[in-house]
C-alpha cells in the first residue's frame, strides 16, 4: 500500500500540466508598446498609450501560436511635446486616414530555452513589410510575459515625408519594444 501512496500521486501529477495552457488574455494595463529613435543624435523614448491584441500561445504547441496586435497611432507620445501634434499630420502617421498600425504573425519558432523568433507582417500607413522579432517568454502560474524588440526603417513606411526624410534630423531606424503581459486560461478540450 505504501507503494501506491507514493506512486499514485506521481501518476496523476503529469496529468495536470498536460492539459495545455494557452496564454491569450492580454493585460493591457501591465503591457507596453514603446519605441526609441534618435533626433539630432539624441536618444528619444516614446510610447503608445492605446493598443490591443488577440494572442494565443501554448509553450508546448508553438506552431499554433498566433498574434494580431493593433496600435492606436493617435495615442502616441513621441517623448517630445513639440512633436506630438506634428506626428499626427500627413507627413508623419496621417492618423486621420491611417488610424492604426497592425502586426499579424505568420509564425513562431523556438530559439531554445525561453527564446523565440516571431515573424509577421507590419502594416503602417498603407504599407506592409515583413518583420522578424526575437521574443522571450516567461511565465509564473497563469501569468505570461512576452518581451521583444525589432527595428524598422521609418522611411519604408513613408513616416516623415518632405523635409522630414532627412535622416540626419530624425534617424531612419526606429526600435520598437513590446512588453506584453498575457494571462492563461486552460485550453478547451
Amino acid at each position, binding site marked *: 500500500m505504501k507503494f501506491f501512496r507514493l506512486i499514485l500521486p506521481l501518476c496523476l501529477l503529469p496529468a495536470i500540466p498536460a492539459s495545455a495552457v494557452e496564454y491569450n488574455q492580454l493585460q493591457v494595463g501591465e503591457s507596453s508598446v514603446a519605441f526609441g529613435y534618435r*533626433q*539630432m*543624435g*539624441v*536618444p*528619444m*523614448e516614446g510610447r503608445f498609450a492605446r493598443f490591443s491584441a488577440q494572442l494565443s500561445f501554448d509553450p508546448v504547441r508553438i506552431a499554433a501560436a498566433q498574434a494580431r496586435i493593433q496600435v492606436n497611432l493617435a495615442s502616441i507620445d513621441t*517623448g*517630445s*511635446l*513639440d*512633436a506630438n*501634434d*506634428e506626428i499626427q499630420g500627413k507627413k508623419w502617421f496621417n492618423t486621420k486616414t491611417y488610424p492604426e498600425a497592425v502586426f499579424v504573425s505568420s509564425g513562431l519558432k523556438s530559439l531554445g530555452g525561453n527564446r523565440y523568433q516571431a515573424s509577421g507582417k507590419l502594416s503602417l500607413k498603407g504599407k506592409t513589410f515583413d518583420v522578424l522579432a526575437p521574443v522571450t517568454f516567461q511565465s509564473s502560474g497563469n501569468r505570461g510575459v512576452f518581451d521583444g524588440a525589432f527595428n524598422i526603417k521609418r522611411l519604408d513606411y513613408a513616416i516623415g515625408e518632405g*523635409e*522630414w526624410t*532627412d535622416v540626419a*534630423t*530624425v534617424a531612419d531606424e526606429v526600435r520598437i519594444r513590446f512588453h506584453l503581459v498575457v494571462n492563461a486560461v486552460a485550453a478547451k478540450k
Partner: protein
Amino acid sequence: MRTSPEKYTTTAIVLHWLLALFFFAALPLGLYMHDLPFSPARLHLYSYHKWLGVSAFLLVVLRVLWRATHRPPALPQWTPAMQKIAGGVLHALLYVLMIAIPLSGWLMSSAKGVQTVWFGVLPLPDLLAKDKVLGDFLAAFHRLLNYTLIFLLLGHVGAALKHRFFDRDEIFSRMLPWSRR
C-alpha cells in the same frame, strides 16, 4: 608710479572675447528659434544652441578658475567709490548669469525629456527626470535669466564705451587684445 593700469592677462582677454562671441551667437539664436514651427530647421537650431551653451559653459568654468587664481588689474586710484562698487556688482552678476544660464538650459533639456548631446556625439547626463511642469518652469526661468543678461550686457558694454570715448581712460583698453601703445 604707473600712469596707466596694468592690463588683464592674455588668457583672461581671450576668454572674455571668446565668451562674448558665444553669447552674441547663442542669445539671438535662442530668441529666434523658440517661435519657429516644429521643423527640421527648428531641431537643428535647438541643437546648435545647446552645443554653443555647453561649449560656453566649459569656457565659463575655465574663466572662473582663472579669475579665482589671478587678480585682475587694480582700478585707477581716481575711480569714484560708487563706480568701483557698481562695476564689482555688475561683474559679479555677469559671472552668476554666465554660470546659471547654461545650467538652466541643461536642466530644462533634461526636464523636457530631450537629453543634451554635445555636437550630437557626447551625451551629457540628465540631471532631472522628465517633468512637464518643471520643464515649463525652467524654460521661463532660462528666458528670465537671459533677458536679465541682455539688460546687464547693455550696461556692461555701455560702461566700457563710456570709459573709452567719454572718460578717455584706460579701463576699456585693459581688456583689449591689442595694446594702445
